[in-house]
């Protein structure tokens, strides 16, 4: 079995257009969430983390003068471009693959008033993915993951396995979703949006905050020579078989996913797990379910880091962005704060990290859960 190394990444969000800008703000505990008053998204003001459209278009104009791209496609193209910048990947090679993780892609094209110059067929995810794939002249057809809020983590697990099995040398995983009226109204109808910026694991949490963004992480069977290498150790997915929208009350599904991921990783992981990058949506049931699963694993002493208080829930991008932040934490030795968290609001003891601290970390666990009862767990470690 080959090893899968994380060789490059990018994050685009309200906090910046590359990994460094985002991490800099996160280390300073600066949130990208603000009160949005935009009638095209919602009649009532709501909290969210959004990317300034002019800024996005301006950044995009630096790399292309082609305007035949949607906001979603631009986010993906910009993110992949920046991630590829410091690599020497041959886009046209047989062993290079793009994996795109998204929940809704260009769903705003269903609104007939949205971007009339764009062909409607691009509401098909594969059509949007082709658009992105063709921009980079990747030879292989892209793989598209659309698996609710675990899409990003599933993308990374898929990439890890394809590389370990020697199917590809370089796999570029891009996760992205944009904020649309479609998604905002849906979560509002679920009474799931918090009336304040979200507060993961906190006693006063009352729901999630939405966000938009993209993240790209590149896995390769070839390590980078001039930097500390982080590898994919193993990952697992599970289903609750309980309810299509409500998290399991026992945490059984997530517990199973974590247990399998750990079992798979045992020959590759350098040390005990140093921290857990949680899903932490700040809905009452999600955080409680995660806490129960983590507690059942007897991980109550391991610090938890949740990033939804900075970037909101970026859906298909979340798993990729949060994995990048976790990997960066291992490299810099800075454990991020769970912004929004003050006092524990879950019924079992867990240790939520609430301020940025210096800590030597050699390995971490990233988890995610989503609608459809799905859970995912993935483990990264220093080589």
């Amino acid at each position, binding site marked *: 079995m080959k090893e899968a190394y994380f060789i490059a990444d990018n994050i685009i969000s309200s906090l910046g257009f590359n990994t460094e800008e985002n991490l800099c703000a996160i280390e300073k505990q600066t949130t990208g969430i603000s009160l949005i008053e935009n009638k095209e998204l919602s009649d009532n003001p709501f909290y969210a983390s959004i990317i300034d459209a002019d800024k996005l278009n301006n950044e995009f104009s630096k790399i292309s003068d082609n305007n035949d791209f949607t906001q979603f496609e631009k986010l993906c193209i910009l993110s992949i471009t920046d991630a590829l910048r410091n690599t020497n990947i041959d886009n046209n090679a047989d062993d290079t693959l793009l994996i795109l993780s998204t929940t809704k892609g260009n769903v705003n094209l269903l609104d007939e008033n949205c971007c009339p110059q764009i062909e409607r067929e691009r509401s098909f995810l594969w059509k949007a993915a082709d658009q992105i794939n063709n921009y980079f002249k990747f030879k292989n057809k892209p793989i598209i993951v659309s698996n609710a809020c675990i899409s990003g983590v599933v993308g990374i697990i898929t990439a890890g396995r394809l590389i370990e099995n020697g199917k590809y040398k370089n796999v570029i995983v891009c996760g992205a979703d944009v904020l649309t009226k479609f998604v905002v109204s849906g979560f509002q*109808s*679920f*009474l799931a949006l918090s009336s304040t910026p979200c507060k993961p694991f906190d006693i006063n949490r009352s729901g999630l905050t939405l966000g938009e963004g993209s993240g790209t992480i590149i896995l390769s069977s070839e390590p980078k020579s001039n930097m500390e290498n982080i590898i994919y150790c193993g990952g697992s997915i599970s289903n609750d078989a309980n*309810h*299509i*929208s*409500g998290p399991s009350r026992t945490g059984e599904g997530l517990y199973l996913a974590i247990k399998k991921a750990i079992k798979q990783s045992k020959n590759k992981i350098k040390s005990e797990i140093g921290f857990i990058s949680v899903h932490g949506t700040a809905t009452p049931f999600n955080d409680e379910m995660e806490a129960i699963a983590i507690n059942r694993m007897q991980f109550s002493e391991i610090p938890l880091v949740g990033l939804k208080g900075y970037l909101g829930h970026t859906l298909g991008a979340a798993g990729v962005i949060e994995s990048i932040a976790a990997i960066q934490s291992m490299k810099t030795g800075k454990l991020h704060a769970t912004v929004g968290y003050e006092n524990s609001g879950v019924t079992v003891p867990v240790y939520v990290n609430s301020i940025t601290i210096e800590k030597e970390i050699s390995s971490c666990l990233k988890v995610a859960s989503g609608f459809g009862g799905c859970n995912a767990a993935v483990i990264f470690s220093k080589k």
Partner: protein
Amino acid sequence: MDELIEKLKVEIIEALSLEEITPADIDANAPLFLDGLGLDSIDALELIVLVEKKYGYKIQTAEEGKTVLYSVKSMAEFITNRQKS
């Protein structure tokens, strides 16, 4: 009130796709969410939409929802009280 209760039963069956249930199967005083109809949290949310869409009254919070959506009768009372005020 009885008329409203009967009307609500029909609307609930339609909104929640309760294909195998007839209005006569629903006891207006019985709790909607305990058993019998097999309703879940998504159904509760859909009933909140129903009350607003058909009657124009917004249930503001999940807490209020619990009281109003206790039974068909409590839904009818909520609507009648709003209509009076």
